[in-house]
């Protein structure tokens, strides 16, 4: 077998000389003549008989050639050359087809690349398949810091002491790592900025198998005791983009005012074990108190704040790992339980008996952010596939039209002895050429489109975006496979016509009207296109209406002339004791600026998907059994509610006289009052406190209206405002400034005012409230934008497809139209004829698509806001757009048809 292939390969390379074949055949012929002469024929007769017996010498030569091992390649090249020539003869057609494909392929590649990066790619670490993400079920009394993304009933955050126990006592992991994200202020070369950081366990990099790009990474010895490890590792992206690849190893930088030694830089490409996190630096988790001075999480068993990822030893099965780890976890929980406040049997059951650890595959890492983008990306991918489908149908119908106009060419080739297989092969070769050209342009466009899109998605958020604009091999494979499949599909559509054995005959008689079968096929193409574009326009309409509704949703206060910024004095090294004072100074400094009407601050920023909530006890209210009171608990400045313009419904606002040492006071919102009391004024005078937190007891002095808090999508929830000056611990605040100055001028004067207080203070996220709302609506805005773009693209494609097919079918019907006009049909009648045909087609397609669209939009229902999936306005508008496009696409060829001169038309063909 091998010998056979070797021999074929030898001849593939060397080939066979044509002259050798000729000589061999000539010898044969000569011998035949000799034999005939010997049999007694005359010289001419001998030659004649030999020639007859031999048959066509050219044919024998051809057949010998076809046996050559490289014949297949030669014929393929010939088909391609021929195809190229054919396309070159019709550059307009080729351009439209290639551009259509380039748009379809480029859009697909772009979106697929995002989808791949967000949902499919594994972490750039060693053996990612061995990683598992830990989460647990069971109660978690105490503080819980979560980034979201939790599955109901499961918590992804553990306490640090639990982590230590699990890490040191388990028998199933080759390393268990811990991590927690947090913003910090860093000062490098006297330049201060706020960046994201990750607190990590000492074994983090070793367990993941990440190598240093410079210096060394953290090791187990960097996680010894609370506050004892002031070392930091920079991420490659931050080091490259912000520090210009300076020789940083061994240098010192300030983190929240505390000096840290930079020991090294992590390998390029590695961001974090959590997808979507792009920390600028990594610090040992034991330095938690520097990163978050107001909290002492590290020694507290009731603080749930770090994520855990383990590397399962190769010899351990997932079931073994889970069983062994759960046994350990339950015993640890049992020893923890006596330290809890609530020692009831119910609490015991919830804390120990219901506790269970789950190990999820962690090759891609745990990521709340991924869960947030999954649905939007899937929707967009669905839309872009629809666009690609339309591009294929469009090119197929264009090719079909072209094939039909080339019937003369094909009949000539048939007459010259081409088989239908050869013609189909040529059509496929042309299709492949179009596809490859489209893919090439699409792939050139994709990185640009990707860059734009990433820029749009990341918006104003600081830090590196989690997406990269380079296409990896996976995306290339996807694009090439999709191109091949698409090319085969659209080139085989016209080729189907040549499967008909009687085609040679039918080709000889030029048909005056479009051939029945292919006409039906073409109509189907057009109907499909109209359907697809209607679907996309409906989707675009629904998303655009969603974003309009969200933008104009009532937040409960005026969002014009409102600026916000964040300031965390602890990032500049202020101690907890100094914090409240400098915050009050900042408030005073900003309110003294010209044009500033009012300033307020809160530790729980509005419309930023943030939430700060917990349980409360309210005097005069008996909770129902098992009632969980999850109340929003912002700490605000005395002027915050007035600055936003939240209306007062009963009692009073906070006053400057409500100082840290005065009676603790609270203001609740309407939802709170409605839930706990009969009416707003009944709430006044009662007191609210946090269970098991002495000194949180505050008297309700006012009731204000409800406002949207986490997001404009979510309804207001019961809220209990207290003063940050009276709060348990100081914290960074977000400031809201009502100003009559233009935003840019106001922003500048705010920065100056803060710098004048202390140059180390970092003002971050300074933008207008409108911008903040847009940021909050980023995924909705992105979907709406892309849906509109795809809808427009689809409509354009449908228009082109419709026009092409109509132009062709009218050219075919020139004679029929001529006869009609000769018999007295008016121009308007002819135009009406054509337009009616188009409208019937469009109407049919619309009729079929609408129920499908209503069904399909069910899938995106969760992403809509304030608009039904069967929104009549959207559907009416979409149908109108389609009808307009159809009418327009039909009118141009119809007018041309009406311009037919009957006398000339009758003479054609």
């Amino acid at each position, binding site marked *: 077998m091998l010998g*056979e292939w070797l021999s074929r390969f030898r*001849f593939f390379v060397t080939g066979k000389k044509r002259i050798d074949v000729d000589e061999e*055949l000539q010898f044969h012929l000569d011998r035949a003549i000799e034999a005939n002469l010997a049999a007694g024929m005359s010289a001419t007769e001998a030659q004649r008989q030999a020639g007859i017996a031999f048959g066509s010498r050219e044919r024998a030569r051809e057949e010998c050639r076809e*046996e050559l091992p490289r014949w297949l390649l030669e014929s393929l090249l010939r088909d391609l050359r021929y195809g190229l020539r054919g396309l070159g003869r019709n550059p307009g057609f080729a351009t439209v087809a290639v551009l259509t494909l380039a748009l379809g392929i480029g859009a697909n590649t772009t979106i697929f690349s995002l989808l791949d990066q967000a949902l499919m790619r594994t972490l750039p670490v060693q053996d990612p398949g061995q990683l598992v993400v830990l989460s647990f079920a069971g109660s978690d009394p105490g503080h819980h810091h979560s980034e979201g993304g939790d599955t109901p009933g499961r918590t992804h955050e553990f306490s640090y002491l639990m982590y230590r126990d699990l890490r040191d006592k388990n028998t199933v992991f080759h390393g268990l790592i811990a991590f927690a994200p947090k913003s910090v202020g860093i000062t490098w070369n006297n330049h201060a900025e706020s960046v994201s950081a990750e607190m990590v366990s000492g074994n983090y990099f070793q367990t993941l198998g990440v190598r240093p790009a410079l210096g060394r990474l953290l090791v187990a010895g960097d996680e010894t005791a609370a506050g004892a490890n002031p070392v930091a590792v920079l991420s490659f992206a931050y080091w490259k983009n912000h520090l210009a690849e300076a020789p940083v190893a061994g240098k010192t930088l300030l983190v929240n005012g505390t000096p840290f030694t930079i020991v090294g830089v992590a390998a390029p490409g590695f961001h974090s074990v959590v997808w979507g996190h792009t920390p600028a630096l990594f610090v040992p988790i034991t330095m938690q108190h520097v990163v978050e001075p107001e909290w002492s999480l590290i020694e507290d068993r009731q603080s749930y704040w770090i994520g855990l990822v383990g590397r399962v030893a190769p010899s351990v099965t997932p079931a073994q790992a889970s069983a062994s780890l759960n046994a350990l976890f339950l015993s640890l929980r049992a020893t923890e339980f006596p330290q809890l406040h609530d020692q009831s049997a119910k609490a015991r059951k919830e804390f120990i008996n219901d506790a269970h650890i789950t190990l999820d595959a962690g090759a891609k890492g745990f990521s709340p952010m991924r869960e947030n983008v999954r649905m939007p990306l899937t929707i967009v991918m669905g839309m872009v596939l629809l666009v690609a489908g339309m591009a294929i149908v469009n090119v197929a119908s264009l090719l079909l039209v072209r094939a039909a106009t080339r019937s003369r060419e094909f009949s000539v080739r048939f007459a010259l002895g081409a088989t239908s297989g050869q013609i189909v092969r040529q059509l496929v070769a042309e299709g492949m050429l179009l596809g490859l050209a489209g893919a090439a342009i699409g792939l050139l466009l994709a990185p640009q489109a990707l860059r734009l899109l990433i820029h749009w998605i990341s918006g104003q958020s600081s830090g590196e975006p989690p997406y990269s604009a380079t296409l990896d091999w996976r995306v290339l494979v996807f694009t090439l496979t999709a191109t091949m499949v698409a090319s085969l599909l659209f080139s085989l559509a016209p080729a189907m016509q040549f499967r008909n054995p009687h085609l040679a005959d039918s080709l000889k008689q030029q048909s005056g009207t479009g051939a029945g079968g292919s006409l039906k096929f073409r109509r189907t193409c057009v109907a499909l296109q109209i359907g697809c574009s209607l679907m996309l326009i409906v989707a675009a309409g629904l998303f655009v209406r969603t974003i309009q509704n969200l933008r104009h949703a009532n937040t409960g206060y005026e969002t014009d002339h409102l600026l916000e910024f964040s300031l965390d004095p602890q990032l500049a090294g202020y101690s907890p004791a100094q914090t409240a004072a400098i915050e009050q100074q900042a408030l005073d400094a900003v309110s003294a600026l010209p044009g500033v009407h009012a300033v307020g601050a809160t530790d729980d920023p509005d419309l930023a998907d943030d939430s700060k909530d917990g349980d409360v006890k309210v005097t005069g209210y008996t909770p129902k059994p098992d009632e969980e009171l999850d109340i929003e608990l912002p700490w605000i400045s005395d002027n915050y509610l007035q600055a936003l313009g939240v209306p007062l419904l009963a009692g009073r606002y906070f006053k400057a006289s409500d100082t840290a040492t005065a009676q603790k006071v609270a203001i609740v919102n309407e939802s709170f009052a409605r839930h706990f009391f009969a009416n707003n004024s009944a709430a006044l005078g009662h007191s609210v406190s946090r269970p098991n937190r002495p000194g949180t007891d505050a008297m309700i002095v006012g009731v204000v209206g409800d406002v949207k808090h986490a997001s404009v999508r979510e309804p207001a929830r019961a809220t209990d405002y207290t003063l940050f000056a009276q709060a348990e611990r100081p914290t960074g605040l977000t400031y809201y400034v009502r100003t009559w100055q233009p935003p840019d001028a106001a922003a500048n004067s705010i920065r100056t005012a803060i710098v004048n207080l202390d140059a180390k203070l970092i003002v971050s996220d300074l933008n207008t409230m409108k911008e903040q709302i847009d940021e909050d609506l980023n995924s909705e805005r992105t979907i709406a934008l892309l849906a509109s773009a795809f809808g427009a693209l689809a409509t354009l494609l449908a228009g082109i497809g419709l026009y092409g097919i109509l132009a062709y079918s009218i050219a075919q019907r020139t004679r029929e139209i001529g006869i009609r006009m000769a018999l007295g049909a008016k121009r308007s009648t002819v135009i009406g004829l054509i337009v009616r045909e188009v409208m019937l087609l469009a109407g049919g397609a619309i009729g079929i698509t609408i129920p499908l669209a209503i069904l399909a939009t069910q899938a995106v229902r969760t992403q809509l806001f304030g608009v039904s999936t069967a929104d009549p306005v959207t559907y009416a508008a979409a149908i109108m757009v389609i009808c307009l496009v159809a009418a327009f696409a039909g009118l141009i060829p119809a007018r041309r048809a009406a311009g037919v001169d009957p006398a000339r038309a009758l003479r054609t063909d």
Partner: protein
Amino acid sequence: MPPSADLLQGTLDMLILRAIALQPEHGWAIAQRIQQVSNNVLQIGQGSLYPALHRLEYKGWIRAQWGTSENNRKARFYSLTAAGRKQLDAELANWDRLMGAVNLVLERI
């Protein structure tokens, strides 16, 4: 001339291999030999003989060399290679099996 019997698929290759098994032959001689031995029943069209010869050559079963014919002309002589001989044996064995089976069926039914 009676119409020549259609050669079974793949039989031509076997006949060619067999015709040159004893000594190298050129195309004309191969065709003549097969025709004569079969009493003119098997007529091989030149158009199919040469493609078949080339195909076998590309597969490495036969080797072609320029030589001098019996009437002193330059001709291409084909001879079996080791792989070709093995192939011929396999095809002959297969042929015997097939013929035996067909004959059995014809006799017994």
